């Protein structure tokens, strides 16, 4: 600090920052990317380990043997479902009661803001059925949840069968210390959301539902199950939840323990765990998994119904049975045993899961990168913005002092020239206009869908997406007009001040995002930072403009979709990609309204206006 308070050295340092700014920026950016890529190599990625004592050392013996029973339940369920065309509520109630549970139902209804074309639903009403296994000699203060989301199609019947068979098996045991809730939801995640909101007696998404008659205390952990075949080749585990929230790492460790114990083949992001981390192959394979996780987490979608539990601080994950073309297959008993083991160990918990990591990245099922190790990556990227802002600040400052400087040492206290004040005042208009554009982007598509459908031959969902794109594109044209209004005394100072403000705004936003959802922050920083640093109204403007458009939030989304499918080894064609992009836009808006996902407001109210500022800088006259 003494370095900075000494004017002479301060000036020397400032000169250094000014002169070496460009190389420092490049270096910092490269360091950030390199750090991220290095995360998959062993010193940075570590083996996972069980931190929770209550689940670590004790062994449990799984005795579940109800495979036939599960299949019979599944067959009956599927038949009744086919017959009634919806969730067979009465059958479920009867069956759950017959295995000895306390059974309750909850009806809910929700009108979506506009028709959901991916899931083909608009006015949704359904019924959740749940049975509670009351733990003996416990006062229903704590519970565990096993949930199966049922969609409109005929998937997940086997999951319901297994759930019922497990319930029957669990009911006969006396060691339960926590109540166990067996929950079957209709309309998959919408039902889960309705149930969770009613359970916690809140209403955050405008869901209309009947109050719950039976409760079971604070939910300690939840497991969502998705199974659509009698045999599985592997179990895939999904951890990413709403807004990039992750469950405690111990829950994943628990799953992995029972995968190993039962000899089950378990995958993460659909990828097998690489065995050899010492050679280059393992880390490269890990990098694929890691990138997939970053993309999924950045999307902020709940990847499975567990994702909605996380908002209520309930540790949860989704297990998906995969039936592919492998030789060796496992039946429902193996899956049931893994679940039984997990529930028995969760039953041992004395406290909520809290010992292990909540913020982590996974390059493999048994490898993780902790927050302390991955944060520097985004730190280096944000440093670029800081350096650039510092340079601009000094240039502005020097420009203010510049007139006296050739004349030798300035007299005591040079008052700030009035031009600087004008520079700041001139920022108000572009800031307000870009922010207003963001607001329009957030509000208008849903609000104006009916107007759009009246005047154009489009459906509501299309109308929303097209309005989104139209407003987005209109934002590019608008800012040209703003700076004609404002007086431009010192031409350079205007855009410099604007860029300075934009840089700080962007750095702050990305910093905040990276703290809560690293993946999203990192993804946006990787794309937006270089062009944000480059943007200026001189030089090859068309090149800059092209770059800026390519790194805008919407283009990032499009690019992410291509990368995502590429990593999944199912590359997209351009047309498919575009269709997927449009669907993703609609889903993003829908998920904001139905589940409270924050990606859409974040992009439209925060990053898009900020990006418009850079666009404004680029076309400054």
């Amino acid at each position, binding site marked *: 600090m003494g370095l900075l308070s000494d004017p002479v050295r301060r000036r020397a340092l400032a000169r250094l920052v000014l002169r070496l700014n460009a190389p420092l920026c490049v270096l910092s950016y490269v360091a950030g990317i390199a750090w991220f890529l290095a995360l998959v190599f062993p010193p940075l990625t570590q083996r996972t380990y069980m931190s929770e004592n209550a689940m670590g050392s004790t062994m449990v013996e799984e005795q579940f043997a109800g495979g036939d029973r599960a299949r019979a339940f599944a067959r009956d369920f599927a038949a009744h479902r086919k017959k009634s065309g919806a969730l067979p509520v009465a059958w479920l109630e009867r069956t759950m009661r017959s295995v000895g549970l306390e059974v309750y139902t909850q009806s809910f209804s929700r009108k979506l803001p506009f028709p959901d074309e991916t899931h083909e639903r608009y006015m949704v009403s359904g019924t959740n059925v749940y049975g509670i296994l009351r733990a003996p000699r416990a006062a229903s203060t704590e519970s565990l949840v096993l949930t199966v989301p049922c969609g409109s199609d005929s998937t997940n019947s086997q999951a319901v069968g297994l759930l019922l068979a497990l319930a029957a098996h669990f009911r006969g045991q006396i060691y339960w210390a926590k109540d166990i809730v067996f929950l079957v939801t209709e309309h998959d995640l919408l039902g889960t959301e309705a149930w969770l909101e009613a359970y916690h007696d809140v209403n955050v998404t405008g869901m209309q539902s009947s109050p719950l008659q039976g409760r079971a205390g604070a939910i300690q952990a939840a497991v969502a199950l998705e199974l659509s075949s009698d045999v599985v080749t592997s179990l895939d585990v999904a951890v990413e939840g709403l807004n990039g929230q992750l469950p405690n790492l111990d829950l994943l460790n628990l799953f992995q323990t029972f995968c190993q114990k039962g000899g089950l083949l378990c995958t993460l992001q659909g990828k097998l765990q690489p065995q050899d981390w010492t050679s280059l192959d393992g880390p490269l394979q890990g990098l694929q998994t890691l990138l997939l996780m970053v993309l999924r987490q950045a999307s902020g979608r709940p990847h499975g119904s567990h994702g909605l539990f996380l908002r209520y601080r309930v540790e949860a994950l989704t297990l998906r049975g995969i039936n592919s073309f492998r030789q060796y297959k496992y039946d429902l008993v193996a899956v049931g045993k893994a679940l039984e083991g997990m529930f028995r160990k969760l039953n041992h918990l004395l*406290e909520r899961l809290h010992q292990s990591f909540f913020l982590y990245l996974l390059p493999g099922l048994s490898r993780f990168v902790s927050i302390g190790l991955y944060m520097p990556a985004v730190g280096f990227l944000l440093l670029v913005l800081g350096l650039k802002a510092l340079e601009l600040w000094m240039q502005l400052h020097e420009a203010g002092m510049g007139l006296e400087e050739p004349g030798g040492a300035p007299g005591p206290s040079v008052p700030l020239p009035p031009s600087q004040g004008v520079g700041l005042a001139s920022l108000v208009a572009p800031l307000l206009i870009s922010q207003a554009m963001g607001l329009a982007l957030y509000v208008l598509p849903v609000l104006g869908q009916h107007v759009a459908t009246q005047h154009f031959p489009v459906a509501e969902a299309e109308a929303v997406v097209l309005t989104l794109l139209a407003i987005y594109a209109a934002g590019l044209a608008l800012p040209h007009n703003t700076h004609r209004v404002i007086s431009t005394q010192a031409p350079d100072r205007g855009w410099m001040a604007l860029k300075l403000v934009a840089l700080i705004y962007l750095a702050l936003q990305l910093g905040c995002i990276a703290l809560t959802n690293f993946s999203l922050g990192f993804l946006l920083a990787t794309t937006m930072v270089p062009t944000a640093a480059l943007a200026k109204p001189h030089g090859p403007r068309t090149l800059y403009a092209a770059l800026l458009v390519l790194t805008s939030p919407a283009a990032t989304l499009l690019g992410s979709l291509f990368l995502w499918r590429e990593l999944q080894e199912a590359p997209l064609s351009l047309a498919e990609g575009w269709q997927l992009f449009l669907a993703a836009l609609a889903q993003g808006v829908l998920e904001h309204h139905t589940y409270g996902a924050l990606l859409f407001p974040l992009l439209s109210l925060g990053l898009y206006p900020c990006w418009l500022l850079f666009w404004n800088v680029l076309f400054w006259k």
Partner: protein
Amino acid sequence: MAAAMPLALPVLLLLGPGGWCLAEPPRDSLREELVITPLPSGDVAATFQFRTRWDSELQREGVSHYRLFPKALGQLISKYSLRELHLSFTQGFWRTRYWGPPFLQAPSGAELWVWFQDTVTDVDKSWKELSNVLSGIFCASLNFIDSTNTVTPTASFKPLGLANDTDHYFLRYAVLPREVVCTENLTPWKKLLPCSSKAGLSVLLKADRLFHTSYHSQAVHIRPVCRNARCTSISWELRQTLSVVFDAFITGQGKKDWSLFRMFSRTLTEPCPLASESRVYVDITTYNQDNETLEVHPPPTTTYQDVILGTRKTYAIYDLLDTAMINNSRNLNIQLKWKRPPENGYIHYQPAQDRLQPHLLEMLIQLPANSVTKVSIQFERALLKWTEYTPDPNHGFYVSPSVLSALVPSMVAAKPVDWEESPLFNSLFPVSDGSNYFVRLYTEPLLVNLPTPDFSMPYNVICLTCTVVAVCYGSFYNLLTRTFHIEEPRTGGLAKRLANLIRRARGVPPL
């Protein structure tokens, strides 16, 4: 005569209880009773009651000879001038929706409520000491009762026994929802019984079976009662009750048949020789809508019909002579729906003081039929001091169950019966008239998660943070609030000014 007594005494002791009867009418008596109720859900509830009555003025000093009444409790009554004491330990939760209304309801955990005599000057002090003594007697953590979890209800918890005035200033009520009940609490409770667990109904109280159940609640109630019909003097009554619910699904493999042996792994062989009455009641009420017939084996000697909790019930009575293999039927189905906010009524609210006393909200409300009442309370979150966290802070913190006391209109009018003669299960709560019956319901305790700091290395974190803040804050504040510029030393004086003049003349920048 005085000379003859020392001689007579050894003889009387040898004769045993029978000898006492000859010498003088017994001043204390013991009745024991077991009620077995098949619950609507198919589970089976067993309620034990042991009632010791002592026609003695315990309040007066000088009572030194105890026979059936446990000395530990008797001394407690005189030392702390108790009027009533109600203590219950419960593991599990009575599920009214599935099991119907209970004879004896208790909240999960430990509950203690005490009425002191109006001669007590410092009620809080006596309360504190009493809870500590009880903690020792019952091996429970009752010593954690302090002002932060004690309240003085004004509307509920009226005295159950004789009372001429009910100034609620002498009432104290506390619940410890986290208290875990186990054999260590059962053993001292059993030791208070005159026959311990050697003979009579208490033979069935085997810990490993009792703690194999879905619900376990044991309680001690002490209260004064009328000694005779005209109520000229008082007697002391000690009731020890124990309710358990056996899970038919687990113990009976899903069947609804049960037997004493299957439930308790013991059969009854002999009555407690000290007891004046020892009975087993089995609820054999049949309802027409079920086509199930029930058969109790062996056939009961007598039956007893009464209106219990608003329903006419039939009980098979066994006067403790038989061991039974009994089939059962289900019933007793009263459901309570309480809904819709009240329009008027009595509301008493005593706000909490941080770390001194808890919130108390009492409402006297008239509930319309078939309605939903939702009572919600807004609260502010407050952070605990770091020393106030429990060793397992992530488990959460318990909020005590709330209590609902109600006089429910009876479906069938009960005929007035002799209180002293009626079975024990029907005579704990005083009945004003036959058209109502008293019900007390408890809700589940609530487990609330408070924001918890990371206790894994708080010290390091605090040190590091403080250092960083201390070092950076000062410097940054310094840098941000000052402007730095080089001050020309004025002491350069005349020579420098002259030099500068010359330099300016030459067109060279000044020094």
